[in-house]
């Protein structure tokens, strides 16, 4: 969804003017993060190099952020984990939003039997114990990024769906929608040209939180030990290890936590900036 939204080029232009202060700072951070991610393969050899003799070393010139429990360079590991977290966060949120908006939007727009059926589907997934599903998935499927994306995306969409449904219900009988329908516009056209733009601003709030949440969820899953495999560096995974060494290796908890925090915060602020711009446009 975010990719789609960013691709909506011209519509964001008025927003750009408003991306002052925290918004543009966030944009800079996000761009910087992706640059880091692009160069991360350069660090992968260093991130994998185990030196037991250098385990749990405090930050120094040789290891700017210290070393982890196996003597690997923490900076390299955090860098290598960057594309993983960014990628999983974006994709999982996109999956969730796409499924959620489709199901919720259709339910809200068509109402009646469609609504009835789709709402039951939303309810079943909504009431399904997420944690249990995640543990079951972790036991059934190999621990790959795809598994994690599916686990997050397929358990979070009902929230987006209910929200989308409510928003569509709110606007579908407004005058301009009615007018479009009266003018003979097709259902698809009404949905995409008239309803989507009007439900977009609140959905962007939801999507922004969605990306942030997905990145956090990935970290939490890895933290609980049911996310990515131990050998794939991930911020949550390093934090999970850090809990065993809280007092003696503060850097192990601090730096991946900061990276996670910075990324999530940057995404949130960027999206918030875009949201402000979009609603500005909606007003005119």
């Amino acid at each position, binding site marked *: 969804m975010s990719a789609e939204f960013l691709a909506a080029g011209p519509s964001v232009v008025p927003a750009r003017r408003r991306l002052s202060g925290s918004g543009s700072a966030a944009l800079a951070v996000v761009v910087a993060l992706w640059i880091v991610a692009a160069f991360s393969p350069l660090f992968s050899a260093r991130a994998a190099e185990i030196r037991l003799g250098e385990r749990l070393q405090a930050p120094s010139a040789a290891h700017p952020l210290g070393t982890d429990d196996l003597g690997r360079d923490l900076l390299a590991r955090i860098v290598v984990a960057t594309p993983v977290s960014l990628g999983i966060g974006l994709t999982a949120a996109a999956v969730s939003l796409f499924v959620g908006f489709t199901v919720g939007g259709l339910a809200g727009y068509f109402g009646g039997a469609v609504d009835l059926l789709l709402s039951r589907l939303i309810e079943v997934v909504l009431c399904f114990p997420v944690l249990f599903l995640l543990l079951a998935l972790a036991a059934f499927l190999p*621990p790959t990024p795809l598994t994690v994306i599916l686990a997050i995306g397929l358990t979070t969409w009902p929230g987006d769906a209910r929200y989308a449904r409510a928003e569509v219900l709110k606007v579908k009988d407004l005058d301009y929608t009615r007018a479009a329908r009266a003018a003979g516009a097709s259902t698809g056209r009404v949905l995409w040209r008239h309803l989507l733009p009007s439900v977009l601003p609140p959905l962007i709030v939801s999507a922004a939180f969605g990306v942030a949440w997905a990145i956090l969820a990935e970290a939490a899953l890895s933290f609980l030990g049911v996310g990515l495999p131990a050998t794939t560096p991930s911020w949550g995974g390093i934090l999970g290890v850090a809990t065993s060494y809280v007092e003696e290796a503060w850097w192990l908890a601090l730096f991946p936590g900061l990276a996670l925090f910075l990324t999530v915060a940057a995404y949130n602020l960027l999206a918030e900036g875009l949201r402000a711009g979009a609603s500005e446009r909606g007003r005119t």
Partner: protein
Amino acid sequence: MRRQLGALLLLLTVGAFACRARESAPAPSPQAAASDRTLFRRLFGEPGTLNAVLQTDVPEQLVLAYVSRNLFDFDAGLHLVPSLAERIEASPDGLAYTITLRPEAVWEDGTPVTPADAVFTIRKIADPSTPSPLFKPLFEDLVSAEEVSDRAFQVRFRKPYAYRAMSFVMPVLPVRRFAGVPFDRAPDNRRPFANGPYRLASWKPQESLVLERNPKSWGPPAFFDRILFRILPENDVAYRALVEGSLDETLIDASLKDRAAGDAAFGACCRVLEFYDLDYSYIALDTRLPFFSDARVRRALTMLLDRDGIAAHLYRGSARVISGPWAPQSPASDPSVTPLPFDPAAAARLLDEAGWRDTNGNGIRDRGGREFDFELLVSSGNTIGREIDETFVAELARAGIRAHVRSLEWASFVERLDSGSFEAASLASSAPDPNPDPYAYWHSSQWPPRGLNSGYYKNAEADRLMDQARTEMDESKRISLYHRLHRIFRDDAPAIFVVNSTKKYALRRRLEGVESSPLGLFAIWPGPVGWRATAAPRGKGPSP
């Protein structure tokens, strides 16, 4: 909005204030007079049952050690000592054992512990429908259990077994309290009928459990009036509770031990007790697989694991490399059998010899079109196991072998292991008793589903030695059989044996009489029942 933030701050300050008030109050600390005779202990989790036969987990064992006595016990030197029983006699053919109960052994209502109780307990353990993982393996070839007099009973087995007497380190349940109720749902499982020095006083689920003196206790008097168990799952939290004074003992790991060494507050109130026990870690291999069926390959893998580095760094020096399924202090372990060295070059030669070469130049060794590529399982709670595995995988990659670490939560891990659907798995072996017999894990008759030989290991010579040792009643001859077996295990490498590490406990300085043993602090008699505390908070001298 400002007001609301104020409310939040208020909540936080009220909390802080209340907590301080608590700390400055005179009564609650364990050093205060009223608490002198209360021992504050730690449980990792909630006991699932207090039925001694159905116990499965450490918390249950820790509580029951105070409440339920065994027929026999191990003392700190691992000798069998009489407890509820006063003597045991074996028949000349070694198949029948007659056990006589001690006349003064009574239940908490003063009635004697009877042979009928013991016979009932043994039959329950052997009953296929009783889930008793702790005691069932001890009575697998039971023939019968009968009362022979009002003080004695006789137990018959199918085969003679050198370590049979250890089977009677087992509890006794009162038969009359299980009459007419389903065994697994008896009220006694929540409120056990005591024959030990303490009985249950209260139990707050997920919080704490309190024991009080058993008025009819018949052994030597214990020091403490009350034992308070706190349920604290996290080591870290327990460490802080110990230093704060609301706990008298806790298990710690190498990392917490290092922290304790640099922590003045800890030094002022507590000490560390460290000792080697009989537990060890190893990596099980499915020897049916083409990768692991050749002893040369298994030896090569052992030589690719830097066990000295692991002992020095991951265990911070508190571990010893092993070369067979025993801790170095087990009599079965032969000190002259030195572990294989960490030697990647020699390992590479062995792999070449066994036909595992990189024929297609992709960096991975292969043989007959199959790449050397396997999955290494580890249970998710096994932190050091995961660290060992990751170290191992990195070294394997340098040697042209691809391996993946996969962490599984316990139930799935065990199921993969038991169903034989694993390639390699990191395991920790913990000894319930000093029995060194490796039969159940490494004898070829013990392949699943019959036994626990999950790696489907088979070595005819090893089988023969294990069979012979089981019926060899002369201890020194038996030990020399095990020493021969040890050499075979090192060279044939049925698994990758890793290390035996120390157990570390942090204890309040007030505790005295804490005896360690190769079985740990708790699985021995008197064990914690013999612990005492100095009366004065500043340690002026022991109390009477």
